[in-house]
């Protein structure tokens, strides 16, 4: 082998070494992205929950703790995501097939909304989409009710004049042509202003109208005939004419707190919302809110409702039930007290550490409601009639 050939083979050998070495080095030291694995059975179970606004903060806090605790179902981690949405908005989206992606579970304000959505689906699909019995039935998580929230300075004047706070006394105050000056209050308070949620935007506004009908007729079951009665409509119209914002915005307790007595002297609103805002109202307006319970009580039970359609898997449905159990545990139920919510778990009292019911007992808050004249859920036709009447006669749409 001459010298030229030796050099020739040496160079080839060197080149081969570089190639092989390079390839080995690249494979051995690879630290790039992991290859995508096919869906494994240990992938986390995603639970999407659409949640009514009054309980959203409590449920979101619970979800954070639930996720952090690493709860598992059959070896798979459960991850809960909560989307706050008003019950009426959610109902509309379910009915119009606009709820995309479909949540695993829904926590509306009331079981009644579930029945309305079920009725709409039954017409189209011939079956319920939320079960009302069995393992997956809707279970109440916490409870709240509509109560009168009224600024103390105004409550003193109304109670001195009418003796009690009721829809009738509110009606009479709203109609006083001389406003607060005529009622015995100060002239710069202007006219009496009612604070209830816009019934188009918030279920509690619609429920307040039904509660007013209950007091007007002195009974708990309201029919379509009742709400089309011209005398009742005139009476209700006179009350609602004292609402301070008819432009279509949602009026909540947060608004009552933020704008104070400038936009609302009193209103029938959700007790839990009132309790949560009591401290802020005192800070901002230096006039504490007083809570008075109406004769005809409207309850909200915030049921945990699992979607039964094939859009979610059985594992996801069961994972949702795990979260439901967690929400109903005594520990999490106790935390609801700090949000002004009454625990559904009968083992948990409304009093105790951090309870807003204890904190605001001096402002009229009661742990036990003495009168139990609970309004029954009216049928769909009643609600639609009331909404249509509201649009035409109050909001001027």
């Amino acid at each position, binding site marked *: 082998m001459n010298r030229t050939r030796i050099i020739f083979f040496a160079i080839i050998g060197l080149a081969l070494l570089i190639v092989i070495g390079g390839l080995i080095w*690249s494979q051995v030291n690879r630290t*790039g992205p992991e290859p995508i694995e096919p869906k494994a059975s240990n992938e986390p179970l995603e639970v999407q929950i659409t949640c009514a606004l009054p309980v959203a903060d409590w449920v979101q806090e619970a979800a954070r703790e639930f996720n952090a605790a690493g709860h598992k179902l059959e070896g798979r981690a459960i991850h809960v995501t909560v989307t706050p949405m008003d019950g009426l908005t959610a109902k509309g989206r379910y009915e119009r097939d606009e709820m995309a992606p479909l949540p695993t579970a829904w926590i509306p304000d009331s079981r009644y909304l579930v029945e309305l959505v079920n009725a709409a689906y039954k017409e189209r699909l011939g079956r319920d989409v939320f079960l009302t019995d069995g393992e997956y039935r809707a279970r109440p998580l916490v409870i709240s009710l509509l109560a009168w929230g009224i600024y103390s300075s105004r409550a003193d004047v109304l109670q001195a004049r009418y003796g009690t706070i009721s829809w009738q006394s509110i009606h009479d105050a709203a109609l006083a042509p001389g406003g607060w000056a005529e009622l015995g209050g100060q002239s710069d308070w202007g006219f009496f202003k009612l604070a209830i949620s816009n019934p188009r935007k918030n279920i509690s506004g619609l429920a307040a109208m039904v509660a007013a009908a209950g007091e007007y007729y002195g009974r708990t079951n309201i029919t379509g005939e009742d709400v089309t009665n011209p005398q009742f409509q005139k009476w209700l119209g006179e009350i609602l004419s004292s609402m301070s*914002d008819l432009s279509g*915005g949602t009026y909540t307790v947060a608004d009552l707190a933020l704008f104070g007595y400038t936009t609302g002297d009193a209103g029938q609103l959700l007790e839990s919302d009132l309790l949560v805002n009591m*401290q802020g109202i005192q*800070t901002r307006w230096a006039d504490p809110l007083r809570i008075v319970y109406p004769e005809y009580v409207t309850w909200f039970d915030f049921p945990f409702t699992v979607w039964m359609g094939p859009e979610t898997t059985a594992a996801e449905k069961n994972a949702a039930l795990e979260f439901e159990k967690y929400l109903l545990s005594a520990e999490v139920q106790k935390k609801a007290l700090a949000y002004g919510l009454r625990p559904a778990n009968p083992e948990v009292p409304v009093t105790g550490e951090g309870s807003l019911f204890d904190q605001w007992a001096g402002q009229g808050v009661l742990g036990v409601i003495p009168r139990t004249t609970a309004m029954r859920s009216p049928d769909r036709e009643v609600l639609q009639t009331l909404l249509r009447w509201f649009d035409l006669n109050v909001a*001027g749409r």
Partner: protein
Amino acid sequence: MGSHSKRRVSSRNVQPVLGALIIGLFLVIGLCCGTYALIDRLVDRAGPTPQVAASALTVACSPEKGLAFAALVERFNAQRFKTPDGQVMQVVSLQLDPEAMLTAVLSGNADFQAMTPDSSVWLGQLDQAWGRQRGDEAATVVGETVRYAVSPVVIATWESLAREMGWPERAISWQDLLARAQSDPNFRWSHPSTSSASGLLATLAEFYAGAGKTRGLTIEDVKAQTTLDSVAALERTVRYYGQGNEPALIEQALKEGRAFLDAFVVQEQMVVYFNTYRRDQERLVALYPVEGALWEDHPLALLETEGLTPFHRQVFARFRDFLLSTEAQQLILRHGYRPASLSIPLSGPDSPLTADNGVNPAEPKTALQIPGANVVQVVREVWWYTKRHTNVYLVVDTSGSMRGEKLAQAQEALHVFLDQIQGDMERVGMIQFSSGVYNVIYLDELGHNRAALESAVDGLVAGGDTALLDAVYEAFTRLQDLGDTDRINAIVAMTDGRENNSSISLNTLVRRLERDSKVPVVIFCIAYGQDAEMDVLQAIAGPTGGQVYVGSLETIRDLYKILSTYF
């Protein structure tokens, strides 16, 4: 040597070449593989590249809170929040009038996913129009909404004037203001047009007063002749309509002091802003009308449109939480707004909401009722008929220096001005000047001469010198000859260069503006570009209570748009 030996020789010559080629090939492959491996390793060692948001949440923001909102957005973006999948959350602010926001959403051309107008009234209007557009009243486009700052709409006036009216011992009413405006011919007040919340709310207050109500305003009330007459009488006392851009209004007040206006309608926050930055000017005070105030409640609303992505929702939720955080709420208070968080007291040591700043956090005591969306819409429409109408001359420079892009932009701006004035009862004329005064389109109602004006704007040609003073004097003389005291009489004069060809001198013109003004004429001047003489324009606008604006190629369009709201 035969042919075989020749082939052998040739084969021997080819072998080394082939060998070299093969070696070269291997070397190249080897080098490539080595380099690849090296780069691969280096990239991997550097860790995953930080992901930057593929897009951002764009929020349309009404101009009156531009400053505060920009500060909030900057702080949010600086924190580089990330979505669960690692995308950086960014918010982009886009300044738009509330009316323009509605138009964009309803036409499907909105390049924003959330909006923060000055009032929730606009959200009600939007949902109503959206439902009507789709033939389904229940259909809505306004999604999750949160309020992060509020401020009541007040009448801002100078402290000495407020004291003359009985403040602070006596609560002042809209009626007091309007009575003063009607009884005192020198009293100059202004409210924005109905395209901003403070203007809309001031107009609603007038309709309530006109209908003799403080609640329950109906469409019938609004359209009743007695209401219309009453509102028209009140509107006749308006000096001119302020722009919705409240910061610009306050800047003007800071510049001119009491010479600017006697009273104007703004949100309370602007009074705080003025008093914080005033130097030797008199203090402004906020009057909270006793019949009831109205609130600008600055909602942030997510728009449930087709282009909304999960990313947008995540950024919205994070931004919402940020706006309600103590850090953001304290920043909002420092800007003079009332924060939505009730845990922050308005009377704390760092609060600017003090009597020294002309405001009272214990006020207002009551609010006017906001009527239904239909009534609000009718008020906005009817206002165009009851408002104080205008005679306005557009005085346009077409001298040689306006050639090219400058003239093209000015023409577009003039079209915007004409488009913005919706009422056909407003009278507009146009005077073109260069070496002389030319091409006068006589003053007439827009219902009659809109097409002629549009055509004249299109036909403008640049050339010649600059006879600005003659052109202004021509417009002024025409308005004096008309002698119409019922309407706002105004001139909007735009020039880009030095006056060099008028027969009238500046001194003479100013003297005549001051002495011969049987009919009050307000002159607004636009200094278009760097070469315009600011001192000359100030001398023209000053005695008439008008203002000088500086415009450029980029801003001339917006400037004319703003000026259109004055009429």
